[in-house]
């Protein structure tokens, strides 16, 4: 389906990012690629979709060889992040200096940076053939992605100024800068990274996706694809109520073709929720076939 090493699933909340990301993960892992699926969403649904405990550690998904998952816990990531910076300093600096640095970490955004730091680390890890990021909803995702750009500038600026940042002394984060710069280069390399926007044929989701795609393009990301999810199969829309909704969707599908010009796959609304490996496997298969966009008899519901 893709040769990229990093797949980022994006799109408005509730459009089915987690289902699509998890189905893709199962498909790729079973195709033989060693795959990791990671979420930075503090309210992650990965465990619910895979029907297994995951949490803040790399966990093997039962029943799928080659597939691992992790839900980054913002609080634990923060503790790890602080220790990463403070650890080496403890050996060199007196206690009062350490406590000043600790004080600087007590900012509400340290959590954000720490989760981001964890996520960037996966982009630097040769362990997996494919890393899938089931990202947080759009606005938040974009802010996260803007961070490396901002941070690089911010670190440069602070190095010239007082030598202090709210991350701690400049020296301690020079290493992070190198890692962030590398992550940005990977994000912009179409052979390494693909963004997959999930959208539903409805007005608000189209508008938001259009804006997000523009912002992602502005950040220099070149490989962008689309999954159009939850399309009503025509043959089940016999009642006037659903026929009206089907017609509305058809108008929005044309709108998507006009406004979101990029490689697109279509996914139909299914009879049931996508939960558990078996349904993920079948959905992954349908997604592959979605490139020809033919509805199939075997319907299940696709949701977040």
């Amino acid at each position: 389906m893709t040769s990229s090493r990093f797949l980022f699933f994006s799109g408005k909340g509730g459009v089915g990012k987690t289902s699509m990301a998890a189905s893709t993960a199962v498909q790729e892992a079973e195709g033989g690629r060693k795959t990791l699926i990671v979420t930075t969403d503090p309210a992650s649904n990965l465990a619910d979709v895979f029907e297994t405990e995951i949490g803040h550690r790399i966990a093997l998904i039962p029943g799928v060889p080659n597939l691992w998952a992790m839900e980054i816990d913002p609080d634990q990531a923060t503790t790890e992040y602080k220790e990463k910076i403070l650890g080496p300093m403890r050996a060199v600096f007196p206690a009062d200096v350490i406590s000043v640095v600790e004080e600087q970490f007590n900012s509400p955004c340290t959590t954000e940076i720490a989760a981001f730091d964890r996520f960037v680390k996966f982009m630097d890890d040769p362990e997996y053939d494919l890393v899938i990021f089931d990202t947080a909803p759009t606005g938040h995702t974009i802010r996260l992605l803007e961070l490396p750009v901002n941070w690089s500038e911010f670190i440069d600026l602070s190095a010239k100024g007082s030598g202090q940042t709210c991350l701690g002394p400049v020296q301690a984060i020079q290493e992070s800068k190198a890692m962030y710069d590398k992550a940005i280069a990977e994000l912009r390399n179409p052979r390494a990274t693909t963004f997959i926007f999930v959208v539903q044929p409805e007005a608000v989701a189209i508008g938001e996706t259009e804006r997000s795609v523009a912002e992602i393009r502005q950040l220099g990301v070149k490989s962008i694809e689309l999954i159009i999810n939850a399309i009503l199969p025509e043959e089940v829309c016999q009642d006037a109520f659903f026929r009206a909704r089907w017609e509305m969707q058809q108008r929005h599908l044309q709108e998507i073709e006009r406004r979101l010009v990029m490689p697109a796959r279509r996914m139909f609304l299914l009879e049931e929720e996508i939960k558990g490996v078996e349904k993920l496997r079948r959905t992954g298969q349908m997604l592959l076939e979605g490139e020809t966009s033919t509805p199939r008899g075997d319907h299940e519901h696709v949701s977040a």
Partner: protein
Amino acid sequence: MNMFQPEKILLPSNGYSRVLFFAGKGGVGKTTVSSVVALRLAECGYRTLLVTTDPAAHIGEVFEQPVTDEIQPVIGVKNLFAVRIDPKAATEEYKKSILEDARPRYSAEMLAALAEELESPCTEEIAAFDKFSQFLTDETFQVTVFDTAPTGHTLRLLQLPFDYSKQVSLMVATGQESVGLKDKTKARFEAMISKLRDPARTTFGFVVYPESTPIVEAHRAKLDLEKAGIPTQFVVANQVLPVERCSHPFFKKRSEMQKRYLAQIVEKFDVPMLEMPLFEQEVIGLPRLRQAARTVLSDCGCRGVN
């Protein structure tokens, strides 16, 4: 069975204003639900402000008119006002106010260091929260409806006041303490916390659609809120399929699945539930918003007093 009593949940009481929060997973319809409720209360005669804290604000699309970071009347609806918390604009405003506050007391060198500190991306989060707290404590509206950001983010925003002293010391970056600023901030946050915890003044509602993941997520968030001393007062079950339309086996199966989840919501949340049906068309524009408002809140509880 918990009865949904709008007069207890949605309306201002005892001379207090009422703050309503709609939380829930992305995509469940928080914007639609908060717009519908705000519109209904405004039409009942309450002076109502609709605030969006969602970085990708949809309110403008729902009302089909621009919603900016200045409070503006919604054209076509008496008593209804809307505003958007724009993180970028809030950040600029916040930086300016901090620097102006510091100017008379700080040396040029210290001001330069403070200005540098304020260039941190951390400032944006704090500034957005500062703005949010302004609307929360604004008493010029009888009802303020927050179309909140997705769950995790909302909780982080709400947890901030509990850490207020840390934030203030972060902002006073040169190590100089501004006692006045600290006390002022402390008093404002304390007022906010007690308002958030008072069910006569503040209502927390969760929006879900009747499926597993939104329920799991909302329930987790409900428990988190309880830890912060904030009770949840009701749940809105959105996108409920009209049973009489579900004759095809495909939709019949989906409708039955929904029915199981609706029962689960009632049992799990143990608060009143309000059902909002799936409509034939998307709820966009005033005529459809009005129609949805009358369907869902035929009785808004105001008894025509306003």
